[in-house]
C-alpha cells in the first residue's frame, strides 16, 4: 500500500514535505491514482483535496461486503470524514519511493518447528458458542443474500 511510505519519512525523522498535491483527490480505490489538473501551492498547513461525495452504489456495495449498516446520515457523514482524513496522505510525494509491504517488513519471519503443541480444548472453545450440537458449532444455514424488501426502503435508497 503506497500510503505506508509515510512511515519511512517518519522514521527518518523528517517532516513530510508540504508539496502541492500531485494527486488531486477523487474517491480513491486501492491502487488507483486519479489524474487531475495541477494545483496551486497550499495556503495553510493542511491543504486537503476537495471532498467528493461517496456514491450510493458504492455505499450499498460496502454494506453488502462488510455487513455493516450505515443506518443514517450521521453514519454516511462519518464515512465521508474518514475518507477525507485518509486523503491527507496524498500530500506526501512518494514518487520514486518503493512501497512498503507492512511496518513489519524489515523484521524476520519466525519459523516454527512442525510439532503438535496445541488443540484438544474442545470444551473451552464450545463454551463461547451460544448454541452447539454434539461438539459442533451451530451456524445459520448457508449465506443468505441480503433481501431487498418491497415496501421498506433502506436509508440509502430513501436518500437518493
Amino acid at each position, binding site marked *: *500500500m503506497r500510503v505506508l511510505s509515510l512511515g519511512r519519512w517518519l522514521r527518518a525523522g523528517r517532516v513530510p514535505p508540504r508539496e502541492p498535491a500531485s494527486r488531486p483527490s477523487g474517491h480513491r480505490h486501492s491502487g488507483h491514482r486519479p489524474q487531475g489538473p495541477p494545483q496551486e501551492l497550499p495556503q495553510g498547513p493542511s491543504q486537503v483535496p476537495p471532498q467528493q461525495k461517496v456514491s450510493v452504489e458504492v455505499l450499498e*456495495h460496502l454494506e*453488502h*461486503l462488510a*455487513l455493516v449498516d450505515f443506518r443514517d446520515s450521521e453514519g454516511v457523514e462519518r464515512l465521508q470524514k474518514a475518507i477525507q482524513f485518509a486523503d491527507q496522505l496524498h500530500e506526501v510525494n512518494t514518487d520514486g519511493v518503493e512501497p512498503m*509491504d*507492512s*511496518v*513489519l*517488513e*524489515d*523484521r*524476520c*519471519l*519466525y*519459523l*516454527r*518447528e*512442525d*510439532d*503438535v*503443541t*496445541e*488443540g*484438544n*480444548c*474442545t470444551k473451552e*472453545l*464450545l463454551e*463461547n458458542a451460544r448454541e452447539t*450440537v*454434539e*461438539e*459442533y*458449532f*451451530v*451456524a*445459520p*444455514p*448457508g*449465506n*443468505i*443474500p441480503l433481501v431487498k424488501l418491497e415496501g421498506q426502503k433502506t436509508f440509502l435508497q430513501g436518500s437518493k
Partner: protein
Amino acid sequence: MVARGCGGVWRRLRQRCAVRPGSGPFPRGERAVACNARGGMMSAGKSGLTPWIPVVGLEIHAQISSNSKLFSGSQVQFAAPPNSLVSFFDASLPGTLPVLNRRCVEAAVMTGLALNCHINKKSLFDRKHYFYADLPAGYQITQQRVPIAVNGSLSYSLCIDNKMSQMVTKTVRIKQIQLEQDSGKSLHDDARSQTLVDLNRAGVGLMELVMEPDMCCGEEAAAAVRELQLILQTLGSSQAVMAEGQLRVDANVSVHHPGEPYGVRTEVKNINSIRFLAKAVDYEIQRQIEELGNGGTISNETRAFDSKLGCTVPMRDKEGKQDYRFMPEPNLPPLILYDAKSLPANMNHQQVINIDWIRERLPDLPSVKREKLVEQYGILPEHSFTLLNEDGLPEFFENVVKQTQMKPKKVIGWILNDLLSYLKQHSLTVKESPVSSFLLADLLNLLEKKEISSTAAKQVMAIKAGNQKVLNKLIGLVQKKTQGRSNPVLVKQLLEKKLSE
C-alpha cells in the same frame, strides 16, 4: 441428525440435474471426446460445421503433509472428534497471531522445484476476505501478490487411441504455487435449518497450484493430475489422496472456434476422483458445444459435478463477482528464502530455509524412476508406467528380479499380467499381496529350470493367491491319486497348511 456434506447457498448449493442418466449430450457407449494427442480439436461431425477447440485449466489444492497446521500448533489428522484439533488461533479468538510452520514452507519449495518453478526468494502473505461459517476469521491467509513459486511445468504422458504402446508426452504450464489456509468443514442440516461447523480442518496448510489452460480434454486433465499426484507422493509434500480431500481439483472449461478469442469459461467443482475429473471435463465440454450449437450462451458460473448422474449442475450463482478485498497480512513479515550464495553467515539454522539444500535432497521423480527402470531392466516404457502406478510394485518387481534367474523382460509379464490382475480383482494393495516376492521368484526359478510348466506355475500362483476353485481341483487330483481313499476334509487342511508355508 440429518446432515449432508457440502451444500449451502453461498458456495455450494446444488439444484437437481434434470437430465436423466443415459440421455444428455452424449449417451453411454459413445466415445466422449475426439480430442487426443493429435491436437485437441473436436470435429463437429458430418455436418461440416466449424470445429470447436476446448480449453481446460485446473486449479488444484493439495493438503500439505505435516504434523501441525500452517500457522498454529494444532494437529493435522483426517478423522478426529469434531473441534478437537483446534487451537485458539484456528478458532480466530481475539489476540491470537499466526506463526508460520517451517515444514509447510519446505513442502512448497520441494514441490516448486519438482515442477521446475522459479522459487521467489521473497514472497508475501495476504488476506482474502469473505464470509462463511467455516471461516471464523472472515478471511483466509493466502499469497495473492507474490506467491512462493511461479512459472513451472508438469510433463505427463498419454496413450494415443487407447493403445498403451503409443505414448506421447505433453506439458502443462504451472502459473504459480502459493501457500494458504484450509477452511473448516460445514455439515448442512436442512431439516433443522442450520449448519454444523467443525474447525478441525481450519488452518491446515494447503498448496494451491494454478495451471495455465493448456489442456483440451478430460483425458489430458486426468493424466496431468495423476502424474502430479505421483510427484507429490514421491516428494512426501502431500499424500494427495483425493478421497480424503487431500487433493482437490477444480476445472475451468471453455470452448471456442479456431482463430477466435477464448469463450466464456465455467468452473466445475465437487470432483472427487481422477476418473470423475475426466468425466466432468468431457461432459462440460460437450454441454457447452451443444448449448452454443443451439444458439445459446455460456454464463461465467460455477457448476458442480454430480457423479451419480454424470453431469454438471449449476451451483446457485454468487451475487455478482466476489470482491475479496485483498490486503497484506499485517501480522506476517515477508517470507525470505536463501540459497547457497545468499546464505546469511550468523543466523540460527532453524530459522533459515536453503533452496539449494532442498534441491540436492529431492528424491527421484516418477519420470526419472521410469527411465531408470527401462534402462536398467530393458522393459518397455508403458510397463514402467503401469509399474509406477501401483504403490510398492516397482520395489516388488526389483526384489523378484534380484532373486531369480529369469530375465527381467519375462518377469515383468508375470508381475503385470498375473500378479497385478489378481490384486486388482480382489482390491488388494501390493503390500497386502498373499504372494511374496520371494515366493514368486522361487516359482519363476522352477519355471526357468523347466521343472514346472508355465500353466502349472500360473495355477500355483492362483492357489497361493487363494483361488478356491483351483484348490478344489487339487483336492480332486489327490482324490484320484489315492483312489478315493483319502479324507477330503483332511486333504484340504493338509494342502492349505502346506500352501501357507
